[in-house]
């Protein structure tokens, strides 16, 4: 009997994932075999691994390279998003060391889990097959379920982990059912082939099996991006999870969900574009409005930032609804800038917090402006950026998204977006009011800076301001990334 012919293997497109998984596994073993109490060296090793992965990712810029029979494709879109994920993982690791020591969490597994989550995200970004995307999503999600409940001693963290798991599994069901229906209607899970099948058999496009499949896939992804009405897990999970993990969750997975969402919708369902842009219109409006309005009455700052991340997902959905190259490039830019400004804000929250997640309310920021002016100023930069005030990256991102929407003719959507942005200024500036205008007895002497958090803050502030003042280069890169 002859040997089965092996198709050509090209590992280069998934080299970043391979590298990162190997390093994560290595860390797992190192953690178990090296019996020291402090696990800081694991953080350093994971950062080194992330840097190596980033180098491998960057080398993929330029021509798209497919592998595994077209199931995976490393193109500019994937490279851009992978870099966002790596940045979010690195920043989250930077701000985690102080937190885990303070909360006395046994944190050897934290780093491998974050790295595995990053691997999942990277797969989602470059997957061209529904199964690969699902695989990436599951790897990501399971790592996140564990990470959300990482602080075993805290009731809230356990609650967060369990809720995330239950609702995540629930939504995965929808997603998988949708993928199954789509497969049933078109006979393939490769998203390119799906579109090709519909092109040759146009009657499939009106087939309810196909449409419902698309809708359910959209619902599944909407859960991950926390679009209303599938957003309800976000506040509880973000509030309960350990703060560095919340920071990670708000940036990386959201971007990954957008990456997969965009790719699937645009490549696999171009004929149904009219339908899903209508759906996205409604989702965008609902998401922005719900996120911003409920955030107005939040006192706990993590919960407030959770609602704000819902709102920001809404803004990104505006760009998605526009569905022109500017809109999608805007989403890429926005996700990048959002990563930095949000994780930066969370970094400051980590610093201000006390053991047992005390000091988590907005009122606890009172007096920070006088006692720690530099820290307060840094937080102000992030808050301004989140609110979308020039000359920060948040403003440029929002501007780009809304102008893309207007270009596509969605004037009302842009107006609603701007109104929501205006409303959001309230709850961001409320923190600043407390920092600068309310007196406080606190002297904030437990707020100690570690080198890691200092580096993180520096990077985030620098990126936020630089992207706000000279966004040209990154915008160009984003535009180049959108041609898939």
């Amino acid at each position, binding site marked *: 009997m002859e040997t089965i012919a092996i198709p050509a293997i090209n590992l280069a497109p998934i080299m970043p994932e391979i590298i990162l998984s190997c390093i994560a596994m290595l860390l797992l073993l190192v953690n178990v075999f090296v019996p020291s109490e402090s696990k800081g060296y694991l953080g350093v090793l994971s950062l080194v691994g992330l840097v190596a992965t980033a180098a491998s990712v960057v080398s993929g810029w330029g021509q798209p390279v497919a592998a595994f029979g077209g199931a995976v494709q490393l193109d500019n879109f994937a490279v851009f998003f992978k870099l966002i994920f790596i940045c979010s993982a690195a920043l989250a690791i930077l701000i985690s060391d102080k937190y885990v020591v303070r909360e006395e969490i046994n944190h050897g597994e934290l780093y491998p889990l974050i790295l595995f989550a990053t691997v999942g995200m990277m797969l989602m970004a470059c997957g061209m097959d529904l199964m690969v995307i699902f695989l990436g999503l599951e790897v990501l999600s399971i790592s996140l379920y564990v990470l959300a409940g990482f602080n075993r001693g805290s009731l809230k963290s356990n609650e967060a982990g*369990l*809720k995330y798991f*239950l*609702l995540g599994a*629930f*939504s995965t069901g*929808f997603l998988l059912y949708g993928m199954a229906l789509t497969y049933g209607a078109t006979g393939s899970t490769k998203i390119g082939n799906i579109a090709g099948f519909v092109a040759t058999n146009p009657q499939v496009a009106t087939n*309810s099996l196909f*449409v*419902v499949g698309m*809708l*359910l896939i*959209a*619902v599944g992804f909407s*859960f991950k991006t926390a679009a209303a*009405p*599938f957003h*309800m*897990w976000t*506040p*509880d999970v973000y509030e309960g999870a350990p703060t560095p993990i919340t920071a990670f969750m708000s940036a990386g997975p959201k971007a990954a969900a957008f990456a997969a969402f965009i790719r699937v919708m645009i490549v696999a369902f171009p004929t149904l574009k009219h*339908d899903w842009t209508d*759906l996205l219109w409604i989702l965008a409006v609902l998401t922005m409005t*719900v996120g911003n*309005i*409920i*955030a*107005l*009455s*939040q006192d706990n700052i993590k919960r407030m930032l959770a609602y704000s991340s819902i709102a920001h997902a809404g803004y990104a959905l505006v760009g998605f609804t526009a569905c022109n190259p500017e809109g999608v490039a805007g989403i890429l830019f926005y996700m990048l800038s959002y990563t930095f400004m949000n994780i930066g804000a969370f970094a400051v929250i980590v610093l201000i917090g006390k053991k047992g997640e005390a000091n988590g309310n907005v009122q606890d920021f009172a007096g920070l402006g006088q006692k720690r002016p530099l820290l307060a100023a840094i937080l102000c930069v992030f808050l301004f950026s989140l609110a979308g005030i020039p000359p920060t990256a948040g403003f440029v991102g929002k501007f780009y998204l809304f102008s893309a929407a207007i270009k596509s003719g969605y004037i009302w959507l842009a107006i609603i977006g701007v109104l929501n942005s205006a*409303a959001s200024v*309230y709850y961001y500036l409320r923190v600043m009011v407390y920092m600068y205008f309310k007196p406080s007895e606190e002297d904030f002497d437990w707020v100690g800076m570690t080198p890691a958090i200092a580096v993180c803050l520096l990077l985030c502030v620098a990126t936020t301001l630089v992207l706000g003042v000279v966004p040209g280069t990154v915008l160009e890169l984003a535009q180049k990334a959108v041609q898939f």
Partner: protein
Amino acid sequence: MLEYVWLIPLFPLIGVLINGLFGKKIKNEAVIGGIATLAVVGSFVVACGILFQLISMPGEERHFEKTIFTWIQSGTFKADIGFLVDPLSAVMLMVVTGVGSLIHLYSIGYMHGEEGFYRYFTYLNLFTFSMLLLVSGNNLLLMFVGWEGVGLCSYLLIGYYFHKKSAGDAGKKAFVMNRVGDFGFLLGLFTMWWFLGHNYNVWTINFRELASHADLIPAGGVATAIGLFFFLGATGKSAQIPLYTWLPDAMEGPTPVSALIHAATMVTAGVYMIGRMNFVYIKSPTALLVVACVGGATALFAATIGTAQNDIKRVLAYSTVSQLGYMFLAMGVGAFTAGIFHLMTHAFFKACLFLGSGSVIHAMHHALHHVHSDADPQDMRNMGGLRKKMPITFLTFLIATIAIAGIPGFAGFFSKDEILWQAFSNPLHGEVNIVLWAFGAVAALLTAFYMFRLVFMTFFGETKLSEKAYHHLHESPAVITIPLICLAILSVLGGYIGMPKLLGEVLGGMPNYFEHWLEPVFAYSNNYMAHSLPGAHGEHSPALEWGLMGVSVLIACCGIAFAYALYIVSPTIPEKFTSAFPALHRAVYKKWYVDEIYDFCFVNPCKALGGFLWKGFDVVVVDGIVNGVAGIVKGFSGILRYSQTGYVHNYAYGMVLGTVVIVAVYVFR
């Protein structure tokens, strides 16, 4: 040296930065004052260099433009940061930097011991910077930047003693009135730019380019509009009717400020501006007539008020308004050179007068302080007999007064006489010329009168001070008297470069250097007047000119004699006069109630409107809407947040509901 023209405004700017940022830390007065003064002296040196270089160039080529960079380029609107050096701007640069340096030096002594010493010099340097921008800018917008800058610095310096309510009020009044004028300036700027651009596709606000396209401006109509708009700006900045009332109040500021800003430089900006835009004005006899009439009327009006004032600085203030009226009168009859000439000589003797009055006030203040008296050191009725105690101040003050009165041999005579002669003989406005001349002549009479009244009341006669106070009077230190001496010398010699031809021939063929110097700048206008206007510049007999000159001298001497009679010979006559005509005296003393009229017509209605808009509209309507909307949104938030129940099954239910709705909508579409 021409290449370095940009250094001229740069030096004072550096002074501003150093004194402004670090002045509070540098406690040493000499250092702060020294930096500020050296900055202006540096500018003066560069200006001298530029002047000499210009002199060495032949007449037609005496212009140089240095563009630093393009500031605004928006469609067809282009504005550079650039500097224009030509004879006119060279004159202005010399005056501003020269007189400015002397006043900076003077201020070091005058402001000694003042709290906020560094603030004063910062503002003074900032003013000098703005004024230099104004006179050397090569386009209307840059000039406007300087225009606004000097207005701002005027406000800052008038309100320098901001603890006094009257000073703050005076500063605001100056600024607001200036603003009204600036509105006119901007209208003129845009009308000019739009007219040339829209009709001839010449989109420029650069002076030389505008002048080269002067032929495109038709006579009358647009030219009148532009001219009047710009003149509105000039009335604000140069304190003419109707926007002059801020200048007397501006005497609340320190005396060197009054000397620099409100005598020598800022208030002359309007005259300079008309000189720059002469090619527009010449196209509109109407605008020129308005300018001349307003100038003449102001000259007379202010002179009348000056006769009844008792505060030494107020008299000088009204004198300034009056002399500015002369300058505008000159510009209005087409005698641009004469106007600029009077600007220059006026800068010398008026600065000298103000600085001298500062010296007097300083000494009076010191003396009165010693005897713990509350008497006003600026009130002339408390002075008298100061000449024995303050000889240098007296001598320089006297020289400057003789100059302003228009006695031959001193600077003021040449310039004033030139103006009166041009007003009489220039047939630009027909019969009105005689009226204008008459206004000028009567004003000259009154000028001589009230100026010598001031000198007699202050320096001559029995002193009204107590023995002890009088004993404590002494001459001011050198840092104050040296500028006085310099300016007094200039008040004598400064006029000789502008000697009228008539006199020059008598004195051995001395040409009118000044007129010759400024000829290229006003060449266009002079040509236009000669060719286009009927009967313009006809030849007049020298006899007429000599006759008028004699009349001027006679008028001046009458005024002096009158003052002598009233204040030296029989000092009781003024009191009898005022008690005989109490209403007239009160009206003149109260400045003809102009301030009260303005309050009634403009200030109080504006305040009422502002109050209504504030309480009625802003608080109720605008705030109501804004707070109302915010309140509603917050209310929604309070309701919506209960949707987040915390129960997982509720969340799952929400998701299912959402999915069902979405699918149903699409399937049943």
